[in-house]
Each structure stands twice: as structure tokens, then as C-alpha cells.
């Protein structure tokens, strides 16, 4: 059952076995697994419930409805970094491209060796990956619906002999409408909204949308209730909800989870809540071609260049609607329109970099969330190198010019001009970056002095408090994290069923 804030006009009090805060990759998955095991589950989701044909191509309307702060949150630090985070039923899985990668073996080993995480090695994780892939229908999409921009990326990478792989995505009969970042109107993308949440609902879970958890009731080191309020109502007449529960699972993502814990002063004996935030900083360039690409047709991100994965660089393309693209062009007036006339001949390329330095999440004036991150020299160099690689691939695919996000070097017209990127003195504050993957702000580990939760997402301090989102990652993973979160959630659900109920 799904209950929205608009349906409620009185304060509510209910009791349950499990209260899950958040319905994204981690929350939706763990709620589904636990309700399937016969437990009574309540999900509180801060964002609205939007489904199927309610998704559309109006960028402004959709971003405002589905993204946290309408996609305008940013990170404080030496570079301009925009945060993109879903805030709706299904969380960021509703607005991502649905790329499904298993966690790299090197990352799992590192988590086992460095953080002492139990049962995390590839052999242990195999059944969980399999289960997740089956649930969300991970497969390659048919060749006919692959977008021309993906084919150009492939052409460029192959011309340079770079390793390029077709992505597997969580989809059933994707029709290439390329509306992934604004929600899939055909429901082909198997986001949590159409995969795990219906499963949970079918098994008796109740989801409250537009309902923000504010207080975690702590009674002698045990969580006894969660309080929240229905957020879309008038401030003066907001109904409240109190959920008495045996276990709480926080799955609000790497910013909201630590914020909630910090606000409630909980589970922070290690002092590590909000620390070790990794963001996978991403940079984009715009390649312009002679022929039409029409990036808004065909499935997005069908290929990724894996050649530089060992160096922590993942290259791909992505469709960006004209509203967002125009905001990143360095022009205005006549010139802007002139460039935007080439919109159908533009290909937006992006590079994701595995960061070597961590940021933090904290509270400013005990009220405002503050995400801080400093781009270090090593990552600056990596980002410049990634930009050069993107330009190289674009020219190899036949681009006539590449528009860069740097003031000193705005445009390249030929491959021979790539060294200009390194000759200019580009400082961190010149970068315009974006982050889609926030990780690690409540990291797991066996040592209670250096981590927030144990190997299964259970708080070291409070036995009936669990975390199930990217915030428990001990390190960045260098690829899209959705499947990793869901595999860990599946594994942690098993632990809760066997040990905590």
C-alpha cells in the first residue's frame, strides 16, 4: 500500500517490525527482501510518488519534481561541483541510466583486507549479485535501439584501439526513448520503483511518500520509534507520523543518512559519521560533428571505455537536454543560439574519476547540511587527462570541434591541439564538475573506532540500527554503484533475518 501526504490529515501512529527510511537502491531492495521473509515493513520516503506515464520530457518540471533541491545542491570546496541525487519513490534509480556493474574484484578484496569486511570476497558475493541481476533484469539492450552517440563513442574508441564494452542495463525491452534521467515513462527501466517496491508492496509493506523522517527515538541505546512529517503539506498544518519499530534501516544516501544521524546525535562514538565522503567527480566535454547525431534518440550510455579503469578513469557519453546543455556552454546571446542550432550534431561525453581524496558531510549552524570536498592535485591531473582522452576519442570519431569546460581553453579544433589542455594553468576552481555517485560517509568496517557500521551495515553503537546505502562503502569503487548497493542490501537483509528478528 502506498500512502501519500495528500491523503492524510491527522497524525498517525503505527507499529512495525522494520522501518526503512528511503526507497532507493538500498532501501527499496532491503524492504523487499525483508517483507518477502514475512516481516512487517514500513517505508518512509521523503520524495513524491511518481509513476509510469507521469514521467515526461519537460526537463524543468521533472528535475524540480524528482531531484533533491531541483538539482541545484553543490559542494563547498575549491571546485564547482553539482550534486545530483534523486528524491522520489525509487530514489536515484529512477533518474540514473541504469548501468549495472558488479563490484570490481580488486575493490572487494580491498574492503576485505583493509576494513576487515566479512563475507565480501567475490565467491561470497556471487549469489547476491546473481539474485539482484535476476530481480532487476540485467541484460544488454538490443542493437537496434542503441543511440547514434553511443555508436560514435564506439567508433572513436575502436579507432584508437581502446577497450570499449557494451553496458548491461536493468531493463525489459528498452525502447530507446532516452528519458532515463527524467524517469522512464515506458517502465522499461527496472528501477527500484518498478522492481523492488512492487515486490515489497505485494508482500504487505506500506510506503508513505512525501514523508520525511526527522527524529529517531533512542531509548537506552535502542531505537524505539521514528518520527516524521508529511512534507508537501502546508508548514502550519503538517501531519506527523510515529512508527514504533523493532529495527530501523536508514537508506537515505551518502548525504542524508549521516545528516539524520548527526541531527539525532546517534551512533557516532567513532566520530566517523560524515567523514570519508567520496564523490566520483565527473567532467564533461561537448563534441560537435558535421553530421546529425540526435542524442535524444536511442538508449543512453550503451558503451563505456574501460581502457583506463585501472587508472581510475571511466569514459562514456550521455544525453543532456538542451536546457542543461545551454547552461554549460560558455556563450550567450547571438552566439548561444548559433551554437544551440547545432544541438542535434552535439555529443556530450563524460569522464568519471575514482577520487583519491575524501570530503565530508556536516551540519552548518546545526541546521543546514554542508558537503565539503577539496579536489587534490592528483585528481586534478586525472581529470585533465580524462578530458584529453575524451577529446582524442571525439576527434577519432570525426568531431569537428570539442568544447571544453575551461576558461583558458574553451575549444579544440583538432587532435593536435590536445596538449593545450596541459599547457594552460587550469586551477581546481576552473573545473565545472558534477557528481552522480556519493559514497562512504558512514563506512563499514570491523573496527568500531574507525567505522560506523559492521560488515553487515549494523551500527557498532546501536544494535537495532542498520544502514543500507552507498554511505557504507569503505572506499570509492570507480564504477556505477547501483548493483553493489543492492547486492549488499540483499546480503544484509539475510543477516537481519537470521540474527536480529
Amino acid at each position, binding site marked *: *500500500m*502506498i*500512502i*501519500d501526504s495528500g*491523503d*492524510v*490529515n491527522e*497524525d*498517525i*501512529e503505527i507499529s512495525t517490525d522494520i522501518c526503512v527510511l528511503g526507497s532507493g537502491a538500498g532501501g527499496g531492495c532491503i524492504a523487499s527482501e525483508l517483507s518477502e521473509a*514475512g516481516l*512487517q515493513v*514500513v517505508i518512509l520516503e521523503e520524495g513524491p510518488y511518481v*509513476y509510469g506515464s507521469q514521467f*515526461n*520530457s519537460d*526537463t*524543468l*518540471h521533472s528535475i*524540480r519534481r524528482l*531531484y533533491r*533541491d*531541483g538539482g*541545484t*545542491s553543490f559542494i563547498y570546496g575549491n571546485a*564547482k561541483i553539482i550534486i545530483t541525487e534523486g528524491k522520489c519513490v525509487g530514489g536515484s534509480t529512477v533518474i540514473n541510466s541504469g548501468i549495472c556493474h558488479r563490484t570490481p574484484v580488486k575493490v572487494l578484496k580491498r574492503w576485505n583486507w583493509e576494513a576487515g569486511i566479512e563475507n565480501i570476497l567475490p565467491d561470497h558475493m556471487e549469489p547476491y549479485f546473481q539474485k539482484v541481476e535476476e530481480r532487476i533484469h540485467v541484460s544488454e539492450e538490443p542493437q537496434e535501439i542503441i543511440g547514434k552517440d553511443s555508436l560514435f563513442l564506439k567508433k572513436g574508441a575502436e579507432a584508437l584501439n581502446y577497450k570499449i564494452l557494451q553496458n548491461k542495463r536493468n531493463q*525489459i*525491452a528498452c*525502447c530507446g*526513448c532516452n*528519458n532515463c534521467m527524467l524517469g522512464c*515513462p*515506458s517502465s522499461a527501466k527496472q528501477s527500484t520503483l*518498478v522492481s523492488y*517496491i*512492487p*515486490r515489497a*508492496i*505485494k508482500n*504487505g*509493506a*506500506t510506503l508513505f511518500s512525501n514523508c520525511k523522517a526527522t527524529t529517531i527515538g533512542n531509548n537506552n541505546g535502542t531505537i524505539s520509534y521514528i518520527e516524521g512529517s508529511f512534507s508537501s503539506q502546508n508548514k502550519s498544518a503538517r501531519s506527523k507520523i510515529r512508527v514504533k519499530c523493532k529495527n530501523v534501516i536508514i537508506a537515505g544516501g551518502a548525504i542524508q543518512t549521516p545528516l539524520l544521524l548527526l541531527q539525532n546525535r546517534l551512533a557516532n562514538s567513532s566520530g566517523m559519521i560524515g567523514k570519508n565522503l567520496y564523490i566520483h567527480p565527473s567532467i564533461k566535454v561537448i563534441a560537435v560533428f558535421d553530421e546529425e547525431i540526435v542524442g*535524444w*534518440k536511442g538508449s543512453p550510455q550503451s558503451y563505456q571505455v574501460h581502457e583506463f579503469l585501472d587508472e581510475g578513469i571511466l569514459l562514456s557519453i550521455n544525453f543532456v537536454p*538542451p*536546457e542543461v*546543455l*545551454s*547552461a554549460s556552454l560558455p556563450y*550567450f*546571446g*547571438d552566439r*548561444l*543560439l548559433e551554437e*544551440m*542550432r547545432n*544541438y*542535434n550534431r552535439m555529443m556530450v561525453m563524460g569522464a568519471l574519476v575514482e577520487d583519491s581524496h575524501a570530503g565530508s558531510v556536516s551540519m552548518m549552524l546545526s541546521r543546514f547540511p554542508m558537503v565539503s570536498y577539496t579536489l587534490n592535485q592528483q585528481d586534478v591531473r586525472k581529470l585533465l587527462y580524462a578530458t584529453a582522452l575524451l577529446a582524442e576519442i571525439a576527434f577519432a570519431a570525426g568531431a569537428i570541434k570539442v568544447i571544453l569546460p575551461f576558461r583558458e581553453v574553451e575549444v579544440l579544433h583538432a587532435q593536435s591541439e590536445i596538449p593545450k589542455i596541459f599547457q594552460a594553468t587550469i586551477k581546481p*576552481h576552473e573545473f*565545472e564538475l558534477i557528481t552522480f555517485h556519493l559514497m562512504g560517509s558512514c563506512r563499514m568496517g570491523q573496527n568500531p573506532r574507525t567505522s560506523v557500521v559492521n560488515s553487515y551495515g549494523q551500527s557498532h553503537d546501536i544494535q537495532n540500527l542498520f544502514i543500507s546505502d552507498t554511505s557504507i562503502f569503505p572506499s570509492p569503487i570507480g564504477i556505477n554503484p547501483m548493483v553493489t548497493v543492492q547486492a549488499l542490501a540483499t546480503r544484509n537483509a539475510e543477516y537481519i533475518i537470521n540474527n536480529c528478528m
Partner: protein
Amino acid sequence: MEKFHFSRHHKKILQAIIEALIYNSDVTISSYFFDQIIERVERCSSSMPQITQMGLSIILIFVEYAGIFSREFSRFSRMPLSVRIQFINVMDKSSFRVKRDISRILKGLCHTAYLNLPPLWEYIDYRPREHLENSIELRSRMISKEQMQRERERDYLMTREKVYNNQTLLRKEDVTGLYNAAYRSNRSMPGAKNRIPEAVK
């Protein structure tokens, strides 16, 4: 979400900025479009955190009065269009980082609103609505009957209205009752599971 509105003073500054940012020597832009763009900027701003909204208001005031300290010795909104364009150009290329950042923020916000106008979509030949309709139609032909049936059952399960028995608002006891019933219907009542369509495979 409560809608954010600029004051009349802020709107005047914003319109002056928009005029400079989207000027086109070939096309005369009607006041209707400016209203549409301002309305869209307000929509963008309404989802911003309160602190960012305050920051935006301060930026508008900064731009308005920065002109007084320039060679023009005039408020931004009172400058002729050509001077305003030049003013933004100078801000854009300034060696002072804050000025550049302000210019980027304003450009980002105004261009996003501008390119959201339907005539602009036509101008750049961007037709996503038709493409969406065609793609969804194509998908309905691609999937098997069994899959279509499964999706219908899932969609039924996810329909909120069915649980409310045509009530528009739920009271405390309604929610508690429905909540308990949802759990019981799946767990306790014999054979109850069969009444719910097989939703997701």
C-alpha cells in the same frame, strides 16, 4: 512545494539580465517570452534550498548596484542593452573569480529557463514528446503478451487510489486500518494471497 516569487524590484533586475543574456540581433523577443522565462526561473528557484534562494537574491542586487561603481555609473537595469551585454561580457572574462562565478550562475539559470520554451525547441529541432510517444508505442509491440500482463498487474498493485475506497482524505484510524489490512491480507488470511495478482516475476 511552495512556489518562490521574486519581488517586483528583483524581477526588474532579472528581466534586464535576461534581455542581455538572450539578445538576438535578428529576432525581437516579445514581453510575453520574458514573462515566461521569469516564471521558469522562479520555478527553478522554488526547489532550491532557502540559503541558495537568499544567495540568488543577493546576487541580483549585487549585479544591479555593481554598475554604479563601474565606468557607466548607473544601475544595471537602467543601462542601455548594448552596455548591459558588454557589462556581462566583462564579468564573464574577469580575473576576479567571484564575478565569473556570478556570471556563470546567472547564465545557467536564465539559459535553462530560456531553452525550456517550446519555440526554442522548434528552433533547434528538438522534439522529445513525439519521440517518447513513438518509442512507447514501439515498446508495446516489442514485449510479449505475458510481459504486458505482468506489467499491468504490477501497475495495478502500484495504483494508490484502489486502497482508499474513493475516500479523498484518510484519517488516523483509516491509515491504521488499511495498514494492518495490507499486512494481514498477505500474511494471515488463508488464501488471501491468491486475490492479489501475481505482480513481479
